[in-house]
């Protein structure tokens, strides 16, 4: 009985607690003893039911029974089928499910349960079905199948629901049996009982889910008829959106199949149906503003509901819509603002972040005032959400950086945990990088922050940034004090990064060098060896040889070999033999962290993050740095000059195929390098000599100049093959590449890892990869579009008009043109307000060769949905203006 201690301990806790509980002092051993009453020849039904309740109480509190104990209880419980007491029988059903007996024990109760399944009492039948289906294995199911089939269409809803829900669970383990009930289930869908209809529809869909045509038929027939049950209606909405998603939309007619049904559901009397339909509409892929409007209208009504659940549901959905269609949500802004003071902080946070996404430039100031009060009384997790929203707002309206940066620095000074502070610091770092004007004020906020920062990680990050950015500001000397204070006051890790930061100032700013040297010299006597080592090293660099360029490169560029490789080389290095040779460290990355296999759960998150980054138009600079470093490490490509742009990943295979390949297009001034990231997903194979053969018959402007094979590709480890092309000069080279993966297959025994030596040649067709004009344009953020526009000589302006043809909406036309040009929309002009007849969109970018290019697009739409566009381009290079027009003209 030693393991019963936890329960005993609980009793001690309760001693001073005078609260009465019928389970006071309950103990597993004693209850198991009590369970012997189940064996009495004269059953006391009341007492037995009490003992069962006690057993269930123990289980519910997290107590576990050993195998023997469970078996004993189970056998005793089976005796209780002799009693005819209704209440006791109900408890017997419950405890059998809770104990979940093993397969060989189940046989004891099956006859009793089968008897109850044929009882005249419907509640017995329903419960017996649920218990039996829960505990049974496939073998027994055959015997009772006939009863279950009948039960599905039973006139009493409790029996019918029990059979249908059990069928739903059984479908996992015994699909064949349940599939034979199709006709009965279909009949049950017509049931008048609300929940039966719901269960029947759920089961019917589950049975047919892999048959697209059948699901589509089901939806077609039911959306015409009358599904009465609200829950069933919600299901039907889900199935309908699935059908919409899978059916190829007809872009010409513009009408989406089943949209009318979804819209009709917005007028349903049950709120859950209205909401389900509204949500479904907002989630339609490529939803138009016309389709959105009715859904947004009902959600807006929900916002002022007295029920928190409805307000939450609505604001959460609108928040998602605001990410993709901010103008559509703008109508709700007034209701949204009143939610900032909502008692429920989840609702308030969602409202604020929605407003931050939909707000226009003029509302920023007012909004920020409201948020400042709000920030005081919410938890860190909510604050992080707000900080992230403010960061994207700032990137959207760079002119507002002052007020937003101030806000961030204010909250940085307040109390908060690490995650929260990290989110703020990272936001400031991003703003400094993206908005040049914000750099100086951002840096001084960060300097103040490290004066009193308890988080080593954040201090070192900031010091690193100060070292890189500080020397390039107007007055570098003012940062020295903050940095040197760290050397005096902080722990060894922070001191070491402070020394590095100082050295960077010393190397970059000549006038400061003598003073910096004095400061670094003081660090020679630090009591931490890393700090001393760094000080010694930097002094040598700064004093020594006078090779200024060399010391700058050393200080400002990070290591050009992957750290993992360096680590393994160092581990195998024997100091006695010869000097460590840095150039001997392999530069080829074993696998890129970006491509690491992700668990299904994180996949979605990663995808969303990826989309987010993409939507913001910022390929994180670390990613492009990594690409450049990788490419430069190969002699074939190192002479290509400066990498202009790397595209996002393009998938060249379907998901779940044998070999998974995606590609990145690296654009150089005169060259294009295609990087193929390949993953072998077959355990039994090792691939050797992996290369990609590229056919350029549809890309005649490109001449292949180099390629790089992947020598070996074991299961699961991604590797890269490359092909490089020279572009025809004086022309904007575009074209389609068709690609074949070639390799030698060797069989591997996955258990032993042995592999056969011979192998055979094989190839695998990949999808085509296209180089388009957008690949030659880099998105750039322009903070003051007007100013930049005026700064370019108006003589270098080219204007022309184009007809775009019939489009669903202006928004669609705008999006299409932005995608073709691949440029960065400025000042939030990428979103068109609903029902607008004309729109102006501003784009900024850098053309290959380095010329800045600005574009003003003026759109108009007529009653026939004909869209016309006036394209005005300005660039320092008139050639570039012509090329932009050519891109549009040929698109």
């Amino acid at each position, binding site marked *: 009985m030693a393991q019963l201690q936890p329960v005993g301990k609980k009793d001690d806790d309760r001693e001073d607690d005078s609260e009465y509980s019928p389970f006071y002092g309950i103990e597993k051993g004693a209850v198991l003893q009590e369970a012997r009453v189940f064996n009495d020849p004269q059953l006391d039904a009341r007492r037995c039911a009490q003992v069962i309740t006690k057993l269930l109480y123990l289980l519910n509190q997290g107590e576990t029974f050993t195998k023997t104990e469970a078996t004993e209880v189970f056998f005793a419980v089976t005796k209780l089928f002799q009693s005819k007491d209704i209440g006791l029988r109900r408890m017997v059903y419950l405890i059998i499910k809770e104990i979940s007996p093993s397969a060989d024990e189940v046989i004891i109760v099956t006859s009793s349960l089968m008897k109850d399944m044929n009882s005249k009492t419907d509640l017995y039948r329903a419960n017996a079905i649920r218990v039996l289906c829960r505990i049974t294995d496939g073998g027994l199911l055959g015997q009772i199948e006939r009863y279950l089939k009948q039960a599905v269409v039973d006139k009493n809803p409790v029996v019918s629901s029990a059979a249908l829900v059990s069928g739903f669970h059984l479908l996992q383990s015994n699909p064949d049996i349940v599939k034979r009930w199709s006709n009965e289930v279909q009949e049950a869908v017509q049931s008048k009982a609300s929940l039966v209809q719901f269960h029947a529809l759920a089961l019917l869909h589950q049975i047919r889910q892999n048959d697209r045509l059948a699901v589509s038929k089901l939806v077609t027939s039911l959306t015409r008829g009358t599904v009465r049950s609200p829950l069933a209606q919600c299901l039907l909405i889900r199935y309908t959106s699935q059908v919409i998603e899978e059916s190829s939309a007809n872009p010409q007619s513009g009408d989406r199949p089943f949209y009318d049904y979804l819209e009709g559901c917005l007028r349903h009397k049950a709120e*859950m149906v209205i909401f389900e339909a509204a949500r479904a509409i907002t989630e339609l892929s490529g939803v138009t503003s016309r389709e959105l409007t009715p859904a947004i209208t009902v959600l807006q009504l929900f916002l002022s509901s007295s029920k928190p659940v409805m307000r939450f549901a609505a604001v959460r959905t609108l928040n998602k819509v605001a990410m993709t269609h901010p103008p559509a949500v703008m109508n709700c802004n007034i209701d949204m603002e009143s939610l900032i003071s909502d008692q429920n902080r989840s609702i308030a946070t969602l409202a604020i972040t929605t407003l931050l996404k939909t707000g226009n430039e003029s509302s920023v100031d007012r909004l920020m005032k409201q948020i400042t009060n709000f920030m005081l009384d919410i938890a860190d997790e909510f604050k992080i959400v707000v900080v992230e929203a403010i960061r994207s707002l700032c990137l959207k309206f760079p002119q507002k950086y002052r007020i937003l940066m101030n806000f961030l620095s204010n909250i940085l000074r307040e109390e908060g945990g690490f995650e929260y502070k990290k989110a703020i610091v990272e936001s400031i770092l991003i703003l400094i990088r993206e908005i040049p004007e914000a750099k100086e004020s951002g840096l001084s906020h960060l300097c103040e922050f490290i004066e009193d920062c308890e988080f080593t990680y954040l201090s070192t990050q900031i010091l690193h940034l100060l070292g890189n950015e500080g020397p390039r500001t107007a007055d570098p000397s003012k940062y020295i004090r903050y940095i040197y204070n760290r050397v005096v006051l902080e722990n060894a890790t922070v001191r070491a990064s402070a020394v590095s930061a100082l050295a960077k100032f010393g190397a970059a700013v000549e006038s400061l060098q003598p003073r910096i040297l004095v400061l670094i010299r003081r660090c020679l006597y630090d009591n931490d060896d890393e700090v001393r080592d760094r000080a010694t090293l930097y002094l040598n660099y700064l004093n020594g040889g006078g090779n200024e360029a060399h010391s700058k490169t050393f200080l400002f560029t990070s290591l050009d070999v992957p750290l993992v490789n360096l680590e393994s080389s160092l581990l195998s290095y024997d100091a006695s033999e010869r000097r460590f040779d840095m150039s001997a460290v392999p530069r080829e990355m074993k696998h890129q962290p970006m491509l690491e296999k992700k668990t299904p759960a994180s996949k979605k998150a990663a995808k969303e993050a990826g989309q987010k980054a993409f939507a913001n138009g910022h390929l994180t600079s670390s990613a492009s740095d990594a690409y450049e470093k990788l490419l430069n490490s190969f002699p074939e490509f190192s002479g290509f000059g400066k990498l202009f742009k790397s595209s996002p990943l393009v998938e060249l295979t379907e998901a779940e195929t044998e070999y998974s390949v995606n590609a990145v297009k690296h654009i150089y001034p005169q060259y294009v390098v295609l990087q193929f990231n390949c993953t072998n997903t077959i355990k039994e194979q090792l691939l050797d000599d992996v290369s990609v053969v590229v056919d350029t018959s549809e890309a005649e402007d490109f001449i292949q100049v180099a390629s790089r094979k992947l020598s070996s590709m074991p299961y699961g480890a991604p590797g890269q093959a490359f092909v490089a092309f020279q572009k025809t000069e004086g022309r904007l080279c575009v074209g389609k590449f068709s690609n074949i993966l070639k390799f030698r297959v060797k069989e591997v025994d996955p258990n032993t890892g042995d592999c056969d030596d011979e192998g055979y040649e094989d190839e695998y067709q990949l999808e085509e990869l296209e180089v388009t004009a957008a690949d030659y344009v880099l998105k750039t953020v322009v903070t003051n579009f007007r100013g930049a526009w005026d700064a370019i000589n108006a003589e270098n302006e080219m204007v022309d008009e184009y007809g775009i043809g019939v489009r669903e909406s202006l928004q669609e036309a705008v999006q299409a043109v932005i995608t073709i040009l691949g440029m960065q929309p400025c000042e939030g002009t990428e979103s068109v307000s609903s029902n607008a007849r004309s729109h102006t969109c501003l784009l900024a970018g850098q053309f290959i060769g380095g010329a800045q290019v600005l574009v003003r697009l003026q759109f108009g739409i007529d009653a026939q949905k004909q869209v016309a566009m006036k394209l005005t381009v300005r660039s320092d290079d008139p050639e570039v203006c012509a090329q932009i027009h050519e891109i549009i003209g040929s698109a």
Partner: protein
Amino acid sequence: MEVSAPLIKNILLLDSEGKRVAVKYFSDDWPNLASKLAFEKSVFTKTQRISARAEAEIGMFDGYVVVYKFISDLHFYVTGGDDENELILATVLQGFFDAVAILLSNVEKKTVLENLDLVLLCLDEIVDGGIILECDANVIAARVAMRGAEADVPLSEQTISQALATAKEHLARNWAL
């Protein structure tokens, strides 16, 4: 695209200190007792200061949507996935809450513990393996009380007390004649 019927992840009934009164998990998201208790603690701490008495309240906790309603010293919670229709979860919560109120004279921890069998049966009648079985409080309460079952039981299968009661009734009727 995976389309699923609304799924309930768990239903929790905790006391005013966050201790378990009755809980039922329908999902493997919490594989062991420790993770279950951690979830209960997290949800309780994040909601204990909120007044969820007049109307059901709602929040996102640890990536789940949780709707909750409190009465006297009891905290009722229903949890769904982050993509679940909030209004459906609220309907389930209301069904549970009202069914308990119908079955018990007084909804407080003491009476719930005294009638724990009824509350556990409520949980069993509301959701089966994550699928909503019934959310009408009156229907749930009737099924828990096995109302409607008595009438069909033949005389020979009744308990002694029931048999006595029936006999008395017969006698009384006969006497009246």
